[in-house]
């Protein structure tokens, strides 16, 4: 009898312990956010959004970082989405179950586990040096496209897999070719899932800094980019630059930059959640 009581007590203690452990991640997240908000909010003024970096914390702004990040993200989406979606369509709809397909799949899963700094080295060797694109937005965006490509591919694959088979059969029965079925039936039905993947890759591209540092993105830029070949900085690099300065106020400025970065990321996150809920309801 005592033995059962003891075992039940052990179970309750275990329940309590793992609940507390689960809270650790959440508590750390809360501390992190509160700390950053307290430090950063006083610097979130109009000047901050419209100025260039400066020696004086009060006059410093994040404009070049925002503009640079917008350039990088637009180009990255432009490169990575068609290629990623195309690859996913090929694997799910066309590819035969042979060794090439298997190899392509294993390779994609390996690429998604490769550290982003290694992509940075690839970008430095291939885009900056060999192709002679220099330390430009284009080099940065091409490198970033390769970083996010596995994300686009895997989420598009999931979305395409989830399209019910009978829709395809209906289309074939009407005499459509495979390509017509893909264009008119499969991809449109998979669109919400594909869009989720696009937003995931945008968040990744926005937060990544190591590959951009490798291809020579500057941490301090005094003019806005005037094309895809100009030098650039990005939001996280601007934050990195401020973090490295000795004056304590610049650390607060970095916190203000982080608020902007997290603000964009959390809104992107919210969009995917809304989209997912809407889509799930629609299919139920």
């Amino acid at each position, binding site marked *: 009898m005592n033995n059962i009581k003891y075992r039940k007590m052990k*179970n309750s203690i275990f329940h309590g312990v793992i609940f507390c452990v689960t809270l650790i991640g959440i508590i750390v997240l809360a501390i992190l956010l509160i700390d950053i908000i307290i430090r950063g909010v006083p610097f979130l003024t109009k000047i901050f959004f419209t100025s260039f970096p400066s020696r004086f914390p009060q006059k410093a702004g994040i404009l070049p970082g925002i503009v640079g990040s917008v350039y990088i993200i637009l180009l990255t989406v432009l490169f990575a989405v068609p290629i990623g979606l195309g690859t996913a369509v090929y*694997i799910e709809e066309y590819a035969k179950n042979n060794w090439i397909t298997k190899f392509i799949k294993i390779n994609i899963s390996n690429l998604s*586990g490769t*550290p982003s700094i290694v992509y940075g080295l690839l970008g430095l060797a291939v885009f900056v040096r060999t192709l002679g694109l220099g330390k430009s937005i284009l080099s940065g965006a091409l490198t970033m496209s390769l970083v996010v490509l596995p994300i686009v591919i895997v989420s598009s694959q999931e979305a395409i897999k989830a399209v019910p088979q009978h829709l395809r059969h209906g289309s074939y029965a009407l005499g459509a070719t495979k390509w017509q079925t893909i264009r008119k039936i499969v991809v449109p039905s998979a669109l919400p899932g594909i869009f989720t993947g696009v937003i995931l890759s945008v968040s990744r591209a*926005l*937060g990544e800094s190591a590959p951009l540092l490798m291809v020579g993105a500057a941490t301090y830029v005094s003019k806005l980019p005037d094309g895809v070949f100009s030098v650039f900085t990005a939001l*996280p690099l601007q934050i990195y630059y401020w973090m490295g300065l000795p004056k304590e106020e610049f650390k607060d400025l970095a916190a203000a930059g982080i608020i902007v970065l997290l603000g964009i990321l959390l809104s992107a996150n919210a969009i995917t959640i809304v989209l997912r809920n809407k889509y799930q309801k629609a299919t139920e």
Partner: protein
Amino acid sequence: MTDMTSAAQNKKASIIRIKRMKFSNVIAKNILFLFAIITMLTTVGIIISLLKDSLGFFSEVSIKDFLFGKVWTPLFNDPSFGVLPLICGSLLITLISAMISIPIGLFTAIYLSEYANRRVRQVIKPILEVLAGIPSIVFGYFALTTITPMLKIIMPHTEIFNALSASIAIGVMTIPLVSSLSEDALRAVPDSLRQGAFALGSTKMETSLRVVVPAAISGISASFVLAISRAIGETMIVTIAAGARPNLTLNPLQSVQTMTSFIVQASQGDNPHGTVGYYSLFAVGLLLFLITLGLNIFSHHIVEKYRMEY
């Protein structure tokens, strides 16, 4: 007569249309195949560019000196290229961060999959997703401005840049990775196993730890390996918080340099193309790539070999 010719023309037109449809199907298939090949080219590109510039490095430094040398001073006038201090830094940080992410991640997964009711899960899971989406630069900031000062209060001789604060930040960052993958693995275990254990009189804890976790062990260990691989490749947190001193030490309160933070440091300095200093970037990058490749293959292998079919 006219009817027949127009019928024939119609038939001909529709044959042409069908041919055209089939033709564009074949074209599309081949173009999409080329897209799929780009992912292969990326891997080939990584290997070739790392190997090519590493060869420049290994023509001046022997592989033995590189792998077993104990001093790493590539940017000095009298350089020394023993990579052990960098490997030691990476391992130290990976080890401590794994000691944080693995138990916390696994317990979180057990709680979410076995104990939590639906309402609690609906609150906690999105929060963990937010945690997973926070960029590493933010964790670097957190390590430098919050974790390190706290460590200094507890242990006054902590250096400003130290391995421990970076490790804690990486550990927290990889909790969601471990918890979400492990939870998926736990949830895939069929309920009949749990019911069997309950029927034999087991408590929930005994069922979770002795039946469900062992049944999901392949997915769980794959998540551990991925968290380790992620920690080794993590760059910004260590660059910001762990410092830049190649240091053959196991003392986590000291400043260390990892393979990744060396790559960043060397790429930022003036390292003209063609010097050994420049090539050393790629040699270290190659080593890093091989290590993470090995870990990825290993985790794939665990999943394949120990997967239980229900």
